[in-house]
């Protein structure tokens, strides 16, 4: 089992603290939802874990100090799907997925058969085999999201960080991507996913981490984290709750005014 531990993690941007005193212990095999209002520091925290931003405090993966690792080794251990999902050139889906393999390659080394097999396998999982040779620019939003997720999965890292992977997707594709992330977690990885949909968070995440104003508000099972008190305090909303097939769902109902 892999354990990601954050101790007193803080991130400053332009001299301003964006994330402070973050202490978390996250275990592999789980989907952990990172939730909170806009500007809560979710993306900043995720970037710090991915090594995209420098941070204070300690980020450890088992016994390894992530911030002290070489860039390539860190990239092999932690895969990151950025919020900005762009391709500046019209690459094919397969070429984009193959961009998950550089952490496993030396500077001038060509991808091996094993790398190509890994990419084929991922494209199979994301149901993108049939579109593998199509340009990313010719695809629909849902297909593009699956293509970029394929790239993040192709790293085959024990930790996958995904920043809003289901934003702007229709409900069918949202369910499909969340199921995919869940199956990746069940294969032994830790999946940390930023999302705004509280119902899907409740349904697919084993744990939730709630942030507000750069600080941790709650961490645990959805039933504890999404309490009326937390939701009023952080989002200023009232929710409606229900059950379907024994699963609880939460729907934002009305905004509370002071």
């Amino acid at each position, binding site marked *: 089992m892999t354990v990601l531990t954050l101790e007193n993690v803080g991130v400053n941007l332009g001299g301003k603290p964006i994330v402070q005193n973050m202490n978390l212990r996250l275990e592999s095999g789980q989907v952990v939802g990172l939730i909170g209002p806009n500007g809560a520091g979710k993306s900043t925290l995720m*970037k710090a874990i*991915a*090594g*995209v931003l420098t941070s204070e405090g300690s980020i450890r993966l088992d016994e390894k100090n992530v911030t002290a690792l*070489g*860039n*390539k*080794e*860190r*990239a*092999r251990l*932690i*895969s*990151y799907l*950025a919020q*900005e999902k*762009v*391709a*500046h*050139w*019209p*690459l*094919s889906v*397969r*070429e*984009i997925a*193959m*961009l*998950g393999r*550089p*952490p496993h*390659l030396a*500077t*001038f080394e*060509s*991808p091996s058969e094993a790398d*190509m097999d890994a*990419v084929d396998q991922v494209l199979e999982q994301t149901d993108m085999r049939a579109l593998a040779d199509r340009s990313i620019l010719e695809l629909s939003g849902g297909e593009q999201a699956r293509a*970029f997720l394929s*790239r993040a999965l192709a*790293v085959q890292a024990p930790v996958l960080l995904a920043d809003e992977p289901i934003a702007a997707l229709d409900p069918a594709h949202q369910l499909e991507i969340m199921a995919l992330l869940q199956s990746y977690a069940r294969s032994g990885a830790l999946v940390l996913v930023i999302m705004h949909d509280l119902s899907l968070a409740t349904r697919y995440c084993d744990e939730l981490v709630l942030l507000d104003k750069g600080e941790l508000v709650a961490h645990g099972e959805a039933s504890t984290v999404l309490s009326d008190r937390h939701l009023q305090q952080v989002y200023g909303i009232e929710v409606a709750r229900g059950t379907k097939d024994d699963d609880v769902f939460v729907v934002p109902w009305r905004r509370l005014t002071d």
Partner: protein
Amino acid sequence: MRSGNGKLIGLTLGLLGLLAVSFVLSVVIGRGGVLADLSNDADDIARIILLEIRLPRALLGVIVGLVLGIAGAALQGLLRNPLAEPGLIGASSGAAFGAVTVFYFPAFGAVLGGAGATLGMAQGQAVAIGGMLGAVAALSLLYLLAGRKPNIMTLILAGVAINAFAGAMTSLALNMAPSPFAALEVVFWMMGSLENRSMEHVWFVLPMAVLGGALIASAGRALDAMTLGQDTARSLGFNPVRVTLRVIAGTALAVGAVVSVTGVIGFVGLVVPHLMRPIVGHHPSRLLLPSALAGACLTLLADIAVRIPMHGPELKLGVFTALIGAPFFLYLILKTRRLSS
């Protein structure tokens, strides 16, 4: 990708074949029937023409084309702009201004020539040394203007500013030229040519072209990752700032050295990546080698073409590449218009 690799290997072999043929043609074709004379073992003049005039010219053509091709492909990848070309960052105009300074101030040229001689360089390299100093000055200025963490916009703006300044200084030098002949000499040099270059020029350019090319080539995979944005590239273990600096330094070094010796040969670096994309795709790293080889083929073939008229003054290579490059630009405009509609 699997079939793409086969395509890349096939293309590379094809281009190597074309390069070999172009190289032989470049050595064989020219004014004077050298080949016929060479069959006579005693003909020293033919041997001199072949080994001391045409061979360096062909070798320089290969190096110039390789450098312009790889630098063009790398800059288009880095700046995510299909209209980027090696001259964009100011190294070419900096080198041209440095070289013109040597033409204009003979005393400065003598100092550089003397300095070169003490470093073991042959006489007559003052223009090239001046050009290289100009390229290094342009690169330093680019670093100063673009800052420690350059982004695409500041790099392009800094390049535009340096090009404008170096162009203005070059025009000033021409404006103040002591005689029309001095001005004419500078103008002809700036048109870009491989004519009358020696093995000394080849040796001057080679180390910087190799070093610059290696710097660019080592950034290939990082350029691919940067296609998906800076954050993704960073998460994949690349440092976008360092990659940018590496590509810029490699381009300035290699292109600066080339321009110092040949003058400005435009359009090769712009056109070649566009010719290769339909075959190898848009992956920045996969474009580097084919663009370099195609650049070398194009430069050699263009340099052969300028020699074909057997009478009258030889057409300058830079003029010829511009003549074939400008219509290509028009084609790009029409293609972009068609795509956007």
